[in-house]
C-alpha cells in the first residue's frame, strides 16, 4: 500500500505528458487522484483569472469545480468577429490524463461543430496531453473558429460555405444567438 501511495505521489507532482508508465495499472491512481485534480483545477483557475487573456474565460459552475462554463469571443478579422460563445467543460477524475468534455452551449455555425455543439478538435481527442490546460483548450477553440479543419467536417454545410467568407458571415449572423446566463 505504501508503495502505491508513493507512486501516486510522484505521479501527481510530475504531471508531464509521459509521466504515466504504461506498465502500471491505472485504477489505484484514479482513486487517489481526485484531491490532486481539485488542486490542479484550482491552480488553473487562478492562472486563468490572473492571466488576463482577452476573449477567453472560464469559471467553475455552481459548487462543482469539475464543471466549468467557458466563454469565447470571436477573433477580430474573422467571420466570427463580434460573437460570443458559451462552452461547457466537464472534467473527469482522470484529468489531466484524460481531456475534459467540451461542448458549445449556444449554436455555432462551424465546420467542426455539430448541431448539438460537439466539437471535433484533435487535442480534445487523440492528441490530448496533460500539458494542456483550460487556457490552451480555450485558445485552441478560439483559433479553430477562424481556422477550421475542412477535411473532417461535422457540419458539411458549413464546410462547403467556408470558401465564401461573405455568405458565411451572413449565415453566422443569421444563426447566432447570444449566450444566455
Amino acid at each position: 500500500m505504501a508503495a502505491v501511495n508513493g507512486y501516486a505521489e510522484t505521479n501527481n507532482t510530475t504531471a508531464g505528458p509521459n509521466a504515466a508508465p504504461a506498465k502500471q495499472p491505472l485504477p489505484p491512481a484514479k482513486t487517489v487522484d481526485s484531491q490532486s485534480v481539485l488542486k490542479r483545477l484550482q491552480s488553473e483557475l487562478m492562472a486563468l483569472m490572473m492571466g488576463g487573456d482577452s476573449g477567453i474565460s472560464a469559471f467553475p459552475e455552481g459548487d462543482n469545480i469539475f464543471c466549468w462554463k467557458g466563454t469565447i469571443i470571436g477573433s477580430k478579422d474573422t467571420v466570427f468577429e463580434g460573437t460570443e460563445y458559451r462552452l461547457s467543460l466537464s472534467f473527469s477524475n482522470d484529468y489531466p490524463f484524460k481531456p475534459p468534455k467540451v461542448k458549445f452551449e449556444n449554436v455555432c455555425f462551424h465546420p467542426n461543430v455539430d448541431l448539438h455543439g460537439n466539437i471535433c478538435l484533435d487535442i480534445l481527442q487523440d492528441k490530448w496531453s496533460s500539458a494542456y490546460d483550460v487556457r490552451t483548450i480555450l485558445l485552441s477553440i478560439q483559433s479553430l473558429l477562424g481556422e477550421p479543419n475542412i477535411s473532417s467536417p461535422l457540419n458539411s454545410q458549413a464546410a462547403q460555405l467556408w470558401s465564401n467568407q461573405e455568405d458565411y458571415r451572413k449565415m453566422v449572423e443569421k444563426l447566432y444567438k447570444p449566450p444566455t446566463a
Partner: protein
Amino acid sequence: MEVSTSSAFNLGILDTLTDDSIQEISGSYDGFCAATEALLNGAGDLSVGSEFVAHVHALCKHGLDSLVRDHFLRALEETFQRNGAFKFWRHFDPYRGSSELQLKNSNIGEDEVQEVLCKALEEISTEKQYQEKCLLMLVHALQSFKDNSSDGSHNSHSERVHLFSKYQLLVSSVLMASLPRHFPEVLHWYFKESLEQLSTIMAGEFDGDYDDDESEIQDKDDMALDERSKGSYGAGKMEIDESSIQGRFSENNKLVKNIGKVVRDLRNLGFTSMTEDAYASAIFLLLKAKVHDLAGDDYRSSVLESIKGWIQAVPLQFLHALLAYLGESTSYEDVSSGLKSPLASHPSSFYPGSETPSEGLVRWQLRLEYFAYETLQDLRIAKLFEIIVDYPDSLPVIEDLKQCLEYTGQHSKLVESFITALRYRLLTAGASTNDILHQYVSTIKALKTMDPAGVFLEAVGEPIRDYLRGRKDTIKCIVTMLTDGSGGNSNISGNTGDSLLEELNRDEESQENTGLDDDFNTDDKQAWINAIRWEPDPVEADPLKGSRNRRKVDILGMIVGIIGSKDQLVNEYRVMLAEKLLNKSDYDIDTELRTLELLKAGSELGDTALPMDILDATILSSNFWPPIQDESLVIPQPVDQLLSDYAKRFNEIKTPRKLLWKKNLGAVKLELQFEDREMQFTVAPVHAAIIMKFQDEASWTSKNLATAIGVPVDVLNRRINFWISKGVLAESIREDNNHVFTLMEGMVDSSKNVGNSGNCEELVADDEGEKSVASVEDQLRKEMTVYEKFIMGMLTNFGNMALDRIHNTLKMFCVADPSYDKSLQQLQSFLSGLVAEEKLELRDGMYSLKK
C-alpha cells in the same frame, strides 16, 4: 371594649335607680361639666380642683366613671383644638403658600422662622403641660374614689398610662387633622438653616484639620458667623487634642440644645416621623452639597477621605449631640432593633465625648456614608470619560470610585453611562484612531484598577472594539503604538517614552513575579492565604464567558482582539520591521529585537498565540520579507564599484553564496560641501544618486538626469523635490519644455535656508509612495485585484449574479493565496466600488459586466 362593658353595667343599674339618685347624678354631672370647663379654661387656676374631685366621686359612685373619662377627654380635645392647635398653626400663617425657594430667598425670614417655631412650640407645650396637669387631677380623683371604695384591686398605674396614651393620641390627631400643608416645609427649612449654621461652625474646625479650601457655605454666611468660624479655625489649627474638640463642642452646644429642644417638643406633639424626615433630608441635602463642593473637576486628588471626615465632623456630631440631648430616644430601636448591620460592629473611633457610639448613631453613619458614596459615585460616573482622559493623573479619583462601587454595587450604572459617553464623545468620525486607541488603553487600565476581574471592561470595551474594526488605519496605529511609543509616526499624539508594549510587559512581569512567589511558597500557610484572597466573580459576570479567562486582564490580547486576525497584526508588524531595518545605518537592532521578543512573550502570556515565529525568520529569508518595491536605480560608479567589490569578496569567502544588492533600499549618510556651508543628510539611495550627479555637472535636464540614474522621469521629478525643498537644487523650465535642475552654489536665498545651514542631520520622512516596502494597504489592494479578476471571470461566464452568489463562489474557488476571507459587507462595498468605476452594473440586485 371599654364602651360595651360600661354600657352593660349601666343597663344593670338602671332598674335600681331612684328619683333621688337621678337627681343626684344629673346634679353632679352638671357640676362636673362646669368644673371641667372652669378647670380647662382656668389658665393655671386650679382652685376648682376640690369641687371637681367631689363631682367625680359622686358620679363614680353611680358607676359612671367611664362617662367621666369620655367627657373629660372630649373637653380636653375641644380645648386643645381651640387653645393649642389653632394658635399654634396661626404662628405659621405668614409662611402659608410660600415655597421653600421663596423662604430661601428672603433673608429676613431666616432668624424669624427659628424664633417663630420656638415660640409656637413653647406656647403649645405650655398649653399641653397644663392640660396634662388637669388630666393628672382627674386621674387622682378617680384614684382616690377607688381607694375609698373597698375594691382596691384596680391598678392606679394602668389607669394613668391608659389615660395619658389616649391624650397623646388625641393631641397628635388634632394636630395632624389640622396640619397646614406648608408645615413640613417650614420644619425642613428650619433644620436646614440650623444645620448650615452648625456646619459653618464645625466646618471651620474641619477645614483647619484637613487644610481644605473654605467651603462655599461659609461664604454665604454673615459676618458674625464668619468671624466666629475664623476664630475656631485658628484654634483648630493650633492643636487638635481632646480639649479643643471639647471646646468646640461646647460652643456648638447651645445651637444643638436649641435644635434638640425643638425636636423634643415636636416629638411630644406627635411629629416624630415628620421631624426625623425633616432633619434627615436637611442633613442629606447638606451632605450632597458638600460632596458636590469637594468633588470638583479636579481629578488629581482623592476626596473620599475628606468627605468621610466631614461626615464625622459635622452631621454625625450634630446627630450625636442631638441623640445625647434627647437621651437616646427609643424611636430608633423600635424601627429595626434586630437588623444590626455587620459593619456596625467595628465603627470608626472618632466620637468626641462618648466611649462607644450608640446603635442609632452607627446606623446614621452607615446611612450617611452610603449616601455620600452614592452621590460621589454618580458624580464621578457622569464624568468618567474626562477622568479616563486624564488617566494616570486621575488615579486617586478612580480609587475613590472603586471604593464607592464596592460599597454601592452599582457597577451596571457605570457601564451604561460610560458606554453612552463613549458613543457620544469618542466613537465619532472626528476622533483620530490614535486618540481612540489611547483612550481605549486608558480605559482598560482604569477599569482594571476598579475591577481587577475585568468583567465590566468586557462590556465597556466591546463598543470601542466594534468601532475600531471599522476603521482602516486601526491596525497600523496599533502596531505603531505597540512597537514605538515615541517617534517614527509623527501623528502619534501620545507622550514620549516607552512603547505600550514595554509598559504592558512591565505589568506582566510584575504580575508574573507575584505568580512565581506563589509557586515558591506552596506550603499550607500560603495556600491558606491564597484561599482567603479568593474573591467570587461579580454578580454581573456572564457565566458563559468562563471565569478562567478573566483571571488576568490581558491588554495585549484585548488590543489584538480589535484587529480580529492575528495574521494581520503580524503582517503589519512585518512591514514596519522591514522598514525600520532598512532605514538603519548601523547594525544596532537591539530595540527591534527587544520589541520582537516582547511581542512574542506577550503573545505567549496572553490567550492570543501570535504566530510570531514568522518574525524570527524575517531577517534570514527573503520569503518572509514583505514584498519589496523594486525600483531600478543606477547608483554612482564609485559606490557601485565598492558594492560589487564587497559582493565579490563575500562570494569568495562564502562560496557558493552570492550577495545581490537591492540598490534602491537602505539609507545613505551624506555630507554636502558648498563654498560657504556644509550640510548633512540621511537620505534614501535614490536621493543620494541624484545629488551625486550634480558633483560633475551643476545643471541637468530632468530627462538626462532620469536616464543617468536609471529611473523614470516621473519618479525622478517626485524624488528631486526633496532637494528643491532643502534649497540645494533649483528648478526652472526651459523653452523646449524641459525641466532643468541647477545646483544652488552659495547662499542665494539665505533666509530660506537658515534652518538647514550648518550641521543639520535630517531623517527623510518618506511620504506616501516612497516606502521601500509595500504597505499593508498595497497588499490589500493587490488582494482585491485578485478578487476583481475572479469576479470578472465569473460574470463573463454566468452573465449576472447576485451578491451572495458571488460571495459564495469566491469563497469556494478563491482559495489559493490570497484566499478570500472578506465578509459579505466588505464584498458589497468592493462591488459598489467597481460599479462606480463603471466596470460593473447593478440591476435588480444582480451584478453584471458593464458592456
